């Protein structure tokens, strides 16, 4: 059946996330939306100070210049879903692998917590569960039933909200139609007040993400490492007035 091709592992989808730095205001809406969608635990002040925070997406802030000619720039960074992901070959148990849609996926119940993948990742996008997550009652009610709660000793990271991708694919298949561009919105994309984030299929040349990826402003992080990132950044501009 024609619709089955959409779900087949032989499709030529390549999910990408476009981040328009000209729109990003650093507001943290994506960060909180990601926590809410993906059941990411909160570690508290003391552990956060050790660098054990667990955000799957962070907004890096860079200062440029000195007072009074000072500027601050924001850059959201999450797992770049690399084509040649450095985290994959180092995993001794194949917990991190590459799926056919270009997603760099993590199998939680295979992970034994060597943290090799975290060391190999040049973007420092991988997060380790140092502790058993705690959700004081009734905060357990906030948990998303579509997403596993990870236990202590497991690596995790941004999945491009794979549960949403799968749901949209299954729904469109059930309804016998082709998945429309923009139908899949990861939590960060959906909430972003300035629409700085756009998600889509790079395999479809007409998708909004593809169009933006062809912009003269587009670049990728640490491209020289040969990782082939699936997150495409659009340069923030200067005004020439």
């Amino acid at each position, binding site marked *: 059946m024609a619709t089955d091709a959409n779900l087949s592992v032989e499709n030529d989808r390549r999910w990408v996330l476009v981040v328009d730095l*000209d*729109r990003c*205001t650093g507001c943290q*809406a994506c960060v909180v939306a990601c926590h809410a969608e993906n059941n990411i635990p909160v570690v508290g002040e003391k552990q956060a100070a050790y660098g054990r925070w667990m955000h799957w997406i962070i907004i890096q802030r860079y200062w440029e210049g000195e*007072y009074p000619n000072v500027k601050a720039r924001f850059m959201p960074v999450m797992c770049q879903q690399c084509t040649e992901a450095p985290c994959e070959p180092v995993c001794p148990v194949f917990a991190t692998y590459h799926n056919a849609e270009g997603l760099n996926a993590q199998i939680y119940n295979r992970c034994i917590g060597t943290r090799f993948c975290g060391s190999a990742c040049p973007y420092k996008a991988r997060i380790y569960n140092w502790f058993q997550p705690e959700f004081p009652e*009734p905060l357990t009610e906030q948990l998303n039933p579509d997403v596993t709660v990870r236990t202590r000793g497991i690596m995790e990271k941004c999945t491009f909200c794979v549960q949403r991708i799968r749901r949209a694919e299954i729904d469109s298949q059930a309804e016998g139609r082709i998945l429309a561009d923009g139908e899949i919105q990861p939590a960060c994309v959906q909430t972003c*007040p300035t629409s700085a984030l756009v998600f889509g299929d790079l395999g479809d040349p007409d998708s909004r993400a593809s169009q933006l990826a062809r912009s003269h402003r587009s670049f990728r992080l640490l491209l020289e490492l040969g990782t082939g990132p699936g997150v495409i950044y659009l340069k923030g501009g200067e005004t020439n*007035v």
Partner: protein
Amino acid sequence: MNRDEDTLNNNPLHSTFKETMPKTLTRREFLKIAAGATAASGLAPAVRSIVIEPFVQPPEEVLPGQATWYASTCRQCPAGCGIIVRTINGRAKKIEGNPLHPLNRGKLCARGQAGLQVLYNPDRLKNAVRQSGGRGSRQFEPLYWPEALDLLSDKIAALSNAERIAFLGGLMPSHIYRLATRLFETLGAAPPVIYDLQSALEGRSAASQLSQAFFGAPDLPVYDISQSDVVLSFGANLLETWMSPVAQSAAYGAMRQGGMGSRGLFVQFEPRLSATAASADEWIPVRPGAEGFVALAIGRIIVEERLGHVGSHRTQAVLYQNVDVREMAAASDVPIETLHRLARAFADADRAVAIPGGYLAGQRNGFSSMLAVQALNLVVAQVGREGGVFLSNPGPTAALRQNLPVNAFDEVIDLIVRMKAGEIDLLLVHGANPMYELPAAAGFAEAIARVPFVVSFSPFVDETAVWADLILPDHTYLESWGYQVPSPGADRPVVSSQQPVVRPLYDTLAAADVLLGLAARLGGKPAEALPWEDEASYLEETVGELHGSSLGAYDARTPSGFWALWRQYGGWWSEKKIRREPELTEVVQTPLPISDPQFEGDPEDYPFHLYPYSSIILSDGRGANLPWLQEAPDPMTTVQWGMWVELNPKTASALGVSDNDIVQVESPYGMLEAPVVIYPGIRPDVVAIPVGQGHQDYGRFAQAVNGSNPLVLVAPVTDPGTGALAWGATRVRLKPTGRKQILARLESLDGNGRESLG
């Protein structure tokens, strides 16, 4: 065999048919068949349908595992964004923006995203309580609701004079305000006083007075950022917490890359580089309180040099007749060349807008500064034009137009004076936390002690509820009814609807239902004025006025149909864009006032300006009990779970302090200690402290943070022009303590990165 026969033969009933269809039909047989047919075909009315009852009964509307989305309104700040909430098995699981809502168009900020943790907060009150060990004891004894209402209505009935009751509220859903106002009116008491820190920091009452002065209406202006080529923002943190941050952020995104061809010029004037200024093309560190001077100088330059394409500026010359550009430049610390350059850019733009923000309203010359900024829109003829200034649409019907006004700080001071004088016997507090939110020096703590009976409606034990005799916890917003006319509004008339997306988790009671219950108990006039059975029936009646409106994006044939659609869509709005063009008043024909800022504290003793700013994460502190928000890093400093003092690198080195060194900050009114964050984007004479931490109560997550409330430093002074709190008008001094407190920061100060990857 014809087709009919074929159908007949393949029919499962075929055999029956054959048996009952003998070749020849006798009368007796016919009757027999007829009777059987009646029994078979007339089943519907005769047969009883019996449903099998399972042992475990799920709630009726719930399909196991199937998500249902309910539309409502966010109450994390007063903006009134539409939300849709994903519920599974009767439990709220995720909040998203309502894609149909004209204000936020499916988008939501960090605070809106964290709303589930208000609902599921482990520190919520689960029922009405009385403080058994006396006020401040934090020992609570549960109270049966009818008993609690009896107790309160007895207190009201026992008042010697209706003037002895007071209601202090924050920005609450409109129906609660209207019911409270109605109840108080029939009692003969003064109307509720509406004041919270959020509205003080964004300068809401001053902005309303500015509209009144300029446009003859109290509705807040809507600045059309998305269509603007040049935006001059004077202390408006419009991408963070000011007014309607999600709508403004969406407009900002559209201005940058929305296909207008250019990405616009956005200039921010303020003493500290805020997250909004970080997104601006230029940040101009103006001397505190001198923002109005910049606007006056720019206006004067445009008028004098006949800049732009407006034609003659002759009618506006009078506005600037007393302005000396050189003086203004010196007073504001902005070079004349910069003023000329920006004046030219502003006047030459096709569409330009100037925005007077909250920091201006927080100065003692606030109103004259705001007038000067608003006048710029007039000079470039941007009032009521695309990319310029519009007015918020008021509510579409008479009842909905009665939006709650925000009182100026002056009126809160009046209430405090009356409380101190023992003139108030009964104080009701809803949606505000004055013990935390008012400057400590305003004396609210002392005043509340003089009030014999205090009632709080807070769902949490906050700093004010601790001083209440009775806490009647309201539902949290995801369990509540309500409506709101967003102000500032969208590009069309909008009324947002709020409805429970889940059943109340605990034995809490809607504040509106408490008011209705009180009215019924009091009988007489109050009962006549508030005859509704419950808040939902009141809402249905109020909202019903919109039924049949020709503007609406939808309409129904019956009122109940309309009521259903109203809840389904999360409100009512006009189908078409309808912008309200302001009409100018005669204020624009007199010279603009020029008034110098004044500060509390001698500059010799207190060399720095204090800048307490609204946190993008915690806003005015109401988000401090939500772990998601506490864990989210501040965008500029990347601090999580903390509170700090921002110093310019030069100031810090002169003081001999560095990151994480604790300094003592002292004003003529109070003192606090906090660790330093070296901040490159702040004037050397300014000390900035985020508002929101330093909670003594308000739950485990708020209390876990080692921080202080900067309002202990703030002088309780006002801008005589508006009566608003001049929260930016205090001077402070700094003293190193020699101690350290390591802040949790996302940013690695030593460049070594995170320990987890070391």
